[in-house]
C-alpha cells in the first residue's frame, strides 16, 4: 500500500490577488424582523456551501511551507473526500486532516462531493495516531455536508468510524487546532473536529443535522430549511456564543471564496498563535483540559425532588384539571410511538 505518489501535486487555487487592507466589514445592520433574520442566516448557509470556498488543499496551498499528502486507511482503501498528511505551518511541523470537495464535476465524483466514507475517517485516525506517536500537533479543516449516508457506508461501519475518531481525539496527547471553514455537517464534521481550540471562519456554519433534514422531520417539508437553519442557530457567531467555537475569523471581501490568499493569511495567523500557545502546555494538562471542555458542553438543570410523578400534575386550577382530562383521554388511545410499524421507520435525525 502506498501513502504517496511522488510528483503528484496540486497548486492552491489562490483566487484573485489579495485585496489588502480590507478590514472585516462592520456587521450588516442588525436584522429587525424574523423574516430578515432568517434570510440573513440562510445567506450564510449559502456562503458556507459556496463551491469556490477554499478547503484544506487550497488553504494549505496558501499557508503551508511544505505539504506531504498521505493516503489510505490500511483496511479498505483511500477516500479522497478526506485529505490527510504532514505540513509545515508558520514553522510548526504538524499533521493535517480535512474534508475536500472537488473544483469540477470530475473531481467531485472522485472526492464524492466531500462526503467521506468510513475509510476516510479511518485514514484520518491513522494519521492522527501517527502524529500522536511522533509528537506532531494536529490541525484539522472541517467542511462537510455530512458523512456519506449510503449502504456501502453502513456496511463498512460509518457509525463505528465516527465514534472511534471522536473518541480518539478526546485522548490524543498532542495539541489539536480545529477550523470549521465551511459546512460543519454533524457527526461527519465532529469526527475530525474535537479540538483544544475550535476556530470558525465568519461564514461557516455548524449544525447537528442539515437544515433540509431538520425541516423535513420537524416541518415535514424541505421548503422550510431556512426556518430550520434559523431555529438551530447554526452560524459561527451563534456557536461562539454557545462556547462550541472559541474564535470567529473574519473573511475578506464578500466571503472567503473571493480571496483565498487573504483568507489563508488571516487563518494562518490565528492557527500559528494557537499552536504556539498549545505546544507550551504539558500533555497531561492538555488532555485533561480537552476532556473538561467537552465534558462541560450542553446545559442541563437539576431539581432536588426524587422520583418524578408527572402523570399526576398538581391540582392548581380549572385549566390544569381540563388538561388532565384531555391527557387521560389521550392516554386511553393507542400511543403510536410504542408500536411503530415495521415498514415505516420513524423519522430520524441523522448525525
Amino acid at each position, binding site marked *: 500500500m502506498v501513502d504517496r505518489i511522488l510528483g503528484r501535486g496540486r497548486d492552491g487555487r489562490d483566487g484573485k490577488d489579495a485585496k489588502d487592507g480590507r478590514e472585516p466589514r462592520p456587521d450588516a445592520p442588525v436584522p429587525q424582523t424574523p423574516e430578515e433574520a432568517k434570510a440573513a442566516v440562510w445567506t450564510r448557509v449559502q456562503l458556507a456551501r459556496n463551491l469556490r470556498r477554499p478547503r484544506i488543499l487550497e488553504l494549505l496551498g496558501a499557508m503551508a511551507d511544505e505539504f506531504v499528502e498521505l493516503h489510505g486507511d490500511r483496511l479498505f482503501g483511500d477516500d479522497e473526500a478526506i485529505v490527510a498528511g504532514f505540513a509545515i505551518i508558520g514553522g510548526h511541523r504538524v499533521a493535517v486532516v480535512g474534508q475536500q470537495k472537488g473544483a469540477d464535476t470530475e473531481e467531485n465524483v472522485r472526492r464524492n462531493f466531500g462526503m467521506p466514507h468510513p475509510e476516510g475517517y479511518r485514514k484520518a485516525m491513522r494519521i492522527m495516531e501517527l502524529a500522536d506517536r511522533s509528537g506532531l500537533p494536529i490541525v484539522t479543516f472541517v467542511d462537510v455536508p455530512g*458523512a456519506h449516508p449510503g449502504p456501502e457506508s453502513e456496511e463498512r461501519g460509518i457509525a463505528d468510524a465516527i465514534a472511534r475518531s471522536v473518541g480518539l481525539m478526546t485522548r490524543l496527547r498532542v495539541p489539536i487546532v480545529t477550523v470549521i471553514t465551511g459546512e*460543519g455537517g454533524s457527526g461527519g464534521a465532529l469526527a475530525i473536529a474535537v479540538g483544544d481550540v475550535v476556530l470558525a471562519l465568519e461564514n461557516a456554519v455548524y449544525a447537528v443535522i442539515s437544515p433540509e433534514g431538520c425541516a423535513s422531520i420537524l416541518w415535514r417539508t424541505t421548503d422550510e430549511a431556512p426556518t430550520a437553519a434559523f431555529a438551530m442557530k447554526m452560524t459561527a457567531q451563534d456557536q461562539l456564543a454557545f462556547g462550541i467555537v472559541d474564535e470567529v475569523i473574519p473573511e475578506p471581501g464578500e466571503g472567503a471564496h473571493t480571496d483565498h490568499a487573504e483568507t489563508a493569511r488571516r487563518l494562518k495567523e490565528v492557527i500559528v498563535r494557537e499552536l504556539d500557545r498549545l505546544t507550551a502546555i504539558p500533555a497531561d494538562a492538555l488532555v485533561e483540559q480537552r476532556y473538561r471542555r*467537552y465534558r462541560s458542553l*450542553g446545559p442541563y438543570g437539576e431539581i432536588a425532588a*426524587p422520583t418524578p410523578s408527572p402523570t399526576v400534575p398538581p391540582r392548581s386550577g380549572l385549566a390544569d384539571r381540563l388538561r388532565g382530562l384531555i391527557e387521560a383521554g389521550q392516554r386511553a388511545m393507542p400511543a403510536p410511538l410504542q*408500536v411503530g410499524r415495521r415498514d415505516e421507520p420513524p423519522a430520524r435525525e441523522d448525525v
Partner: protein
Amino acid sequence: MPMKFPSFRPQREAFPEKMWTRCPSCEEQLFNKQLERSMNVCPSCGHHFRLPAPVRLGQLLDESTFEERDAGLISEDPLGFVDSKTYPDRLAAAQVATGLRDDAVWGYGRVEGQRIAILVMDFGFMGGSMGAVTGEKVARAAEGALAERVPLVIVSASGGARMQEGTMALMQLAKTMGALERLRAAGVPYVSVMSDPTTGGVFASYAVVGDVNLAEPNALIGFAGARVGAGTIGQELPPGFQRTEFLFRHGFIDRIVTRQNLRKELAQILRFLAPARQEAARG
C-alpha cells in the same frame, strides 16, 4: 379562601386501560396481559415491541436491586427552539406521557447477582433523542462504573441527536466518547445492547463501541435515516438494510439476542468480563 371546585378530573385508574394491542408485524390482536407476560414480544411472530425504561430495567435486573442516580437532571432550552411547538412544551408533554424527566435513566443494579452500572433509554420520550441530559447521564454512568470498577451496560433506543438542542446535542458525542475512552483505558468492561431503534448520533457514539455489542432481533440500527440515504444518494437500498441482521452480517454486532434470553446472555458475558476485576477490587 379560594373557592373549591368539585373535582371532575377522572381518576386515571378508573379509565379502562386498552386491553388489546395489534402486532404491527403480523397483525395479530394480542391481549395486553399476555403481551406483558411474554416480555412485550409478540407470541406469534416474535416482534419485539419497544419498552419503556422502567419495564426494561425490570426485565434485566434482579428484583429491587436498582438504585437510580441523578434522577433530578432536566433538559434546558439553550436555543429557544420552536417548530410547531416550543421545545419546553415538547419536553413537558413527553414527561407526562412517560413519567420520566428525560429519556435516559441510570443507576446501579444487579444481573444474576453481579453488580453493574446500567443506563437505559426510553424511545417514548421524544424518540429517545440524545440531548445534554442524555449525554450527561451516559458520561456519569461511565464515570460511575469507573469509580466502582463495575461493568457498564447501556441499552439504547434512540432516533439520534436531539435537534432541538442543536450543536449542544452533537457535542454529546464527544462528551460520551471521552468518558467511554477513559473507562476503556482503565480496563472496565462495557456491554452495549441495541434495541429498536438505535440510529443517528447514538449509534455513532456510545451504542456502536461496546466491548461486546448485543442487539435484539430485527431492530432498526443505522447511521443515516433510510429515507435520507435513499433521497440524497438516489440508490436502491438492499433488503433488510439497517436491521440487526444486516449489521450482524457486516460484523458490527457480536450476538443477536431475543428478549427472553437477554438477561441470561448478559449475565453470562459479564461473568467472563467482570470477575477478575471484581475480585481485584475486593482484594
